[in-house]
């Protein structure tokens, strides 16, 4: 069973078509990573997966049901999205930001429950932002801020988590920390993770499935070993590289070349 499925999905801004007639599915309980060049349409596709963008044509099915037909609050309890460059309200503290993630569980009568409190504290702890909880988000470094946003997404407590470049702004160790956290959520809580990553090697290390966004469609898909070839990197990124098996993890390892001569 797939968590997200697109059927004949066409996405466009004004007149320019970004994704054309796409059929693709994101398997449940797996880590799916989208890769592709800048401006290829990764963020656009993710937005349509989270009903932030209405399709021009076709449908997005969330757990088998057309996402546009589901109540938006129901969707918010099934799928959480972290957009590429969110801007926090001025002066909001990390704890207040993370608490927003509980909005889909509240109503006029039920304003703030013990469960909300627990989930917020857990999300803060898991992302290592507990000690930042009372700091204003706009006083944090880019990486700390990113972790605060991820915490908000986790507080939403959904089975599907969609993240647009969750590792940008993070130093290498924090990149690893975030990816390890997402894998942990995937393995321990069977959460479905969909994310965009730019680092091909980390993408290969953490992905169960890779989707390559190129030429208005999913140009290639499959396990990292199936997808990541020298020809693909050449066509999609216009980059010469060598692909060798990673000596430790055995996933494909891409060694990019600049102007160096390759023999």
């Amino acid at each position, binding site marked *: 069973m797939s968590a997200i499925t697109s059927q004949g999905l066409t996405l466009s801004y004004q007149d320019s078509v970004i994704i054309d007639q796409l059929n693709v599915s994101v398997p449940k309980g797996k880590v799916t990573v989208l890769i592709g060049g800048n401006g290829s349409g990764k963020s656009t596709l993710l*937005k349509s997966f989270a009903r932030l963008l209405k399709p021009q044509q076709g449908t997005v099915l969330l757990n088998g049901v057309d996402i546009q037909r589901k109540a938006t609050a129901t969707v918010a*309890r099934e799928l959480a999205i972290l957009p590429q460059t*969110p801007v926090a*309200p001025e002066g909001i503290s990390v704890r207040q930001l993370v608490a*927003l*993630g509980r*909005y889909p569980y509240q109503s006029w009568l039920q304003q703030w429950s013990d469960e909300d409190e627990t989930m917020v504290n857990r999300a803060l702890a898991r992302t290592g932002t507990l000690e930042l909880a009372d700091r204003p988000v706009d006083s944090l470094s880019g990486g700390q801020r990113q972790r605060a946003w991820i915490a908000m997404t986790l507080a939403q407590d959904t089975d599907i988590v969609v993240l647009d470049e969750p590792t940008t702004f993070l130093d290498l160790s924090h990149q690893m920390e975030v990816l390890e956290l997402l894998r942990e959520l995937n393995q321990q809580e069977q959460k479905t993770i969909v994310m965009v990553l730019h680092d091909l090697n980390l993408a290969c290390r953490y992905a169960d499935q890779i989707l390559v966004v190129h030429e208005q469609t999913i140009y290639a898909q499959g396990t990292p070993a199936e997808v990541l070839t020298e020809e693909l990197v050449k066509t999609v990124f216009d980059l010469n590289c060598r692909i060798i098996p990673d000596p430790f993890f055995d996933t494909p390892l891409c060694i990019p070349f600049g102007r160096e001569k390759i023999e």
Partner: protein
Amino acid sequence: MNSARERSPLIKLILLAGVLVFAMLLSLMTGARWIPLSDVIAAFIQPDAMNINHILVSSTRLSRTLMAVVVGASLAVAGVLMQALTRNPLASPGLFGINAGAAFIIILFSTLFTLTSLQAWLWCAFLGAALAGSLVWLIGNMGQGRMNPLRIVLAGAAMTALFSAFSQALLVVSQEGLDTVMFWLAGSLTERSLTLVWPLMLLSALALGLALICARQVNVLSAGEEIAIGLGQRLGLIRLLLGILIIVLAGSAVALAGSIGFIGLIVPHMVRKGLSIDHRWLLPGSALAGATLLLLADLVSRVVILPQEVPVGVMTALLGAPFFILLARRRGAHYA
């Protein structure tokens, strides 16, 4: 959120309420004729129809005080909502072109029909405010995609310019009633009887109450469009509701008291700094602080050039302009 964290804003909120009550009493006492506190209290508990002080308190002073409270609270809350809706901390309710619209309809109707009753005058102002506000709202929602805050700001500026130009043209053509219109435009809370203003005041009070219970929704909205949709907010609905609330609050304020600047801009800022950025505190805090500030400004405007009065809009501008410059400088330094 949890109780320990909530205590400090609650204490401050209660303090604010105390200050407001104090300012209201002061407002009942102050004027061309000074009335001692004992007489003010007696006027409510044991009214004496022959006592001139009692009559003054329960008629003009009371209505003036209540009006300042409602108008001040409405302007401040409209400011908070406007800033959340546009995600622009420098937005104020005036951006909806509301003041200019109210002025235009008043001038138009008073040249066409010579408005005689104050009641007609009030509803014309409200009508004009609502007209301009709705136009700005519609233009802001036009075109492809969803509401665009920047387009709202631009539409507001354009509507303000347009309505002001119409007003000036009309004023040139007909000199009649120019003085009253000018005084009203400057913003005043001159004594009006409660029997005339209560329908509009009730409308504002309702809108204030509704705004307060939407605090959580406003919190989510101010996190931005994509986050709000992601969290399951019905964005179109909440934006429409806030738009209506802003138009009702700012529209009735301008109808009751003319154009009073700066309250809607500076009060939300002060309360954000001093109380909380969480709208569950910010909205009630701004309502209390806005009411207090307008009361105090009105108090000063009553006594500063006795026996004459300064329009209260002039007072708030005198108070607000330096604050605004300070704010702009601070923010400038912040982002430099």
